[in-house]
C-alpha cells in the first residue's frame, strides 16, 4: 500500500480492480483487504465516542486521520457512525428517497426520536461507550395479523409510536418528523464529505445499499430475539406469513438504492445461528433468498454478513446463482467455507478480531501467512476482520503489522 508513488486516482483504480476481481471470483494481484472501524477511530483521534457520534466535524476528521494512517483496500467498516435503523426503512419503504436515508440511526436521530431501541454515548451511556442497539419487544403475539395485513402501516402507526417517546402525540410526532428529516440531511452531507476525503486518499467509491432478512426485522425490532425464536414453535403459520409480507417491503426499500447506483446491498444476519437447519429452511432462508435473487435481477449483488456460526447452513448458499455476491463470515471457518463455495461465491472474513486485540505483530504475521496459503489460490477471497468494530485498546502496532502482512503474503 505504497502511498507515495501513486496518485489517488491510480490507487483507487487499483484497489477497485482488486476488489472487483475477487467479487468476480477471479484472482486479483493481491488479496484485497477490508479494514476495521469502531471505537479505535475516535480513540486514535483523541476524541470521545460522544463527540464521534454527535459532532460531525470532529467525526469526519477522525475518520480521515484513521483512513490515512491505516490504509486498506476497502474501508467498509470505517464510515460515518450510526446503528442499524431498518425499522425506519420499513416504515418509509413507500418513499424511496426517505427509505434511502434511514439505513442508519445516528446519535442526533436517536435524540430526535427518543426511541427505546438504542443507547448513545453521553445520553444513556458513558461518553466513551460505543453506541448500542438494545432491541426489545414492541409487539404482542396477537398482533401478527396486523403486521401481515399491512406491514408498513403497522410499523409506522403502531410500532414506532410505541418505540419512540417523541412520537407519543400527533403534535410531538409532527415536530419529531421534521427534525428527523433535518437529521437525515446532515448525516448524508457528512457521509458525502467523508466520501470525498476517502477519494482524496485513494479509496474507490463503491455505493452500498441495504436489505435485511425478513425474520430479523421481527427479531430485532418487533418481537425481540428470544420471543421470535419461541414464536416459531408457538405460532409458526403467523410468523411465516409475516416474513412473507415483510419480504415485499424490504425489497421495495432495498431497490430505492438504485437511485445512488448501489452495487452491493449489505445484509447482516442475526437469527441464522439460532436456527436448526429445519427451522432455517422453513422460516428464514426462503424469504432471504427471495430478497437476494430479486436484487440480483435488478443489478444489485448482496454482501451477506453471516454472523455467528453458519456452518450448518452453508450448503444453502449454493442454491444461489454463481457470482450472486459476497459471503462474509464471522465465526465460520473461511477455509472450510471457501472449499464449499469456491467458484460460486466470493468469500470474505478470516481475521478474528480477538487476534487483532490480543495478538502480537509476530502472531498476526504468522496467522496471515498460514491463512493466505490456504485461501489465496484461485482468488475470490477478501480478507476482513470477523467483526468490523475494533475496540479502543486495539494495539496500533497490531494494525500496522496486519497491513504489512497483507502486503507481504497477499
Amino acid at each position, binding site marked *: 500500500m505504497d502511498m507515495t508513488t501513486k496518485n489517488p486516482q491510480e490507487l483507487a483504480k487499483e484497489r477497485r480492480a482488486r476488489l472487483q476481481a475477487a467479487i468476480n471470483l477471479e484472482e486479483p494481484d493481491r488479496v484485497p483487504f477490508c479494514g476495521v472501524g469502531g471505537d479505535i477511530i475516535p480513540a486514535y483521534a483523541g476524541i470521545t465516542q460522544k463527540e464521534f457520534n454527535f459532532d460531525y466535524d470532529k467525526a469526519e476528521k477522525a475518520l480521515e486521520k484513521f483512513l490515512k494512517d491505516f490504509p486498506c483496500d476497502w474501508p467498509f467498516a470505517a464510515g460515518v457512525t450510526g446503528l442499524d435503523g431498518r425499522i425506519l426503512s420499513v416504515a418509509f419503504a413507500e418513499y424511496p428517497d426517505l427509505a434511502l436515508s434511514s439505513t442508519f440511526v445516528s446519535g442526533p436521530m436517536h435524540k430526535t426520536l427518543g426511541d427505546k431501541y438504542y443507547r448513545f454515548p453521553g445520553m444513556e451511556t458513558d461518553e466513551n*461507550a460505543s453506541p448500542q442497539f438494545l432491541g426489545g419487544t414492541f409487539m404482542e403475539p396477537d398482533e401478527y395479523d396486523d403486521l401481515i395485513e399491512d406491514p408498513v402501516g403497522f410499523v409506522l402507526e403502531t410500532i414506532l409510536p410505541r418505540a419512540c417517546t417523541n412520537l407519543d402525540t400527533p403534535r410531538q410526532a409532527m415536530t419529531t418528523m421534521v427534525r428527523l428529516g433535518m437529521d437525515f440531511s446532515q448525516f448524508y452531507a457528512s457521509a458525502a464529505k467523508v466520501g470525498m476525503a476517502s477519494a482524496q486518499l485513494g479509496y474507490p467509491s463503491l455505493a452500498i445499499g441495504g436489505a435485511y432478512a425478513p425474520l430479523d426485522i421481527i427479531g430485532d425490532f418487533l418481537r425481540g430475539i428470544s420471543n421470535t*425464536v419461541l414464536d416459531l*414453535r*408457538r405460532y409458526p403459520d403467523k410468523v411465516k406469513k409475516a416474513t412473507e409480507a415483510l419480504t415485499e417491503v424490504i425489497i421495495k426499500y432495498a431497490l430505492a438504492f438504485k437511485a445512488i447506483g448501489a452495487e452491493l446491498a449489505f445484509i447482516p444476519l442475526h437469527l441464522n445461528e439460532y436456527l436448526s437447519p429445519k427451522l432455517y429452511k422453513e422460516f428464514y432462508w426462503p424469504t432471504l433468498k427471495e430478497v437476494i435473487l430479486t436484487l440480483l435481477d435488478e443489478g444489485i449483488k448482496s454482501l451477506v454478513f453471516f454472523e455467528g456460526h453458519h456452518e450448518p447452513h452453508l450448503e444453502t448458499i449454493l442454491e444461489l446463482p454463481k457470482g450472486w455476491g459476497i459471503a462474509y463470515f464471522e*465465526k465460520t471457518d473461511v477455509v472450510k467455507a471457501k472449499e464449499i463455495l469456491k467458484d460460486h461465491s466470493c468469500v470474505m472474513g478470516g481475521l478474528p478480531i*480477538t*487476534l487483532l486485540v490480543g495478538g502480537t505483530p509476530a502472531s498476526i504475521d504468522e496467522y496471515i501467512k498460514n491463512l493466505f496459503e490456504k485461501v489465496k489460490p484461485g482468488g475470490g477471497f477478501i480478507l476482513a476482520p470477523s467483526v468490523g468494530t475494533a475496540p479502543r485498546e486495539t494495539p496500533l502496532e497490531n494494525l500496522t503489522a496486519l497491513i504489512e502482512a497483507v502486503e507481504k503474503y497477499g
Partner: protein
Amino acid sequence: MHEELFNKIVDMDEEGSIKLAKEYLDGGGDAQKLLNVCRDAMGVIGDKFEKGEYFLSELLLGGEIFSSIMEFTLPLLKEGDIAKLGKIVLGTVKDDIHNIGKDIFKAFVEAAGFEVVDIGVDVPEEKFVEAVKEHKPDIVGMSCLITAGISSMKNTVEALKEAGLKDFKIIIGGGRVDEEVKELAGADAWADDAARGVRLCKELLGVEG
C-alpha cells in the same frame, strides 16, 4: 409419567410437558422426582446440542420449558432438599447487554444442580465485587459477546483481586471468547457453548459429571 415427561421435554413439546408436570404434581406426585426428570432431560438436550443434533433454537426452548416447570415445582421443595453442586455468581460484563446466552447457560447450569445468583447485564466491576462479597460463590461466571467486553472482564478480574477476594474460580463464556481472551482476561476457563460450560464448572470444582 417419568419417561413420558422426559421425552416430551427432550422433544420440545412445550405445552404437553408443562401440562403433564402440572398434572403429576396435582395428583400428589413427588416434586423432587419431577426436578430430577427435568434435570436429566436438560442434560440430554445439552448433549444433543454438543453433538450438533440440536441448535440454539432448542436450547432456548428447552430453557424456557425448564423454567416454566420450575416456577411451580421449586416452591414445593424445601431449601435443604435441593442438593447443590456449588454456587455461581453470573453476569454479563460492563458495556455488554447481550443476555440470551447468559440466560441459557443459567438454565442449564441450574438444571445441572448449581445455584446461580444472576446479577444481570452491563454489570460494572464494583457490582461483581459486591456480589462476590455477599454471596461467596464457588465460581464467578462472566458472559461477554462483544470485543469491548474483553477489557471489562480483565478489569473485573483485577477488581476482584484488588478487593482481596479469592477462593473461587472464574469462568468466562459467550460467543466471542476463546483461549486468547481467557488468557487476556485472566480467567480459569472459557466456553462458547452452554453444555461445555456446565461440564467445565463441574471440572473446576472437581465434582463428578
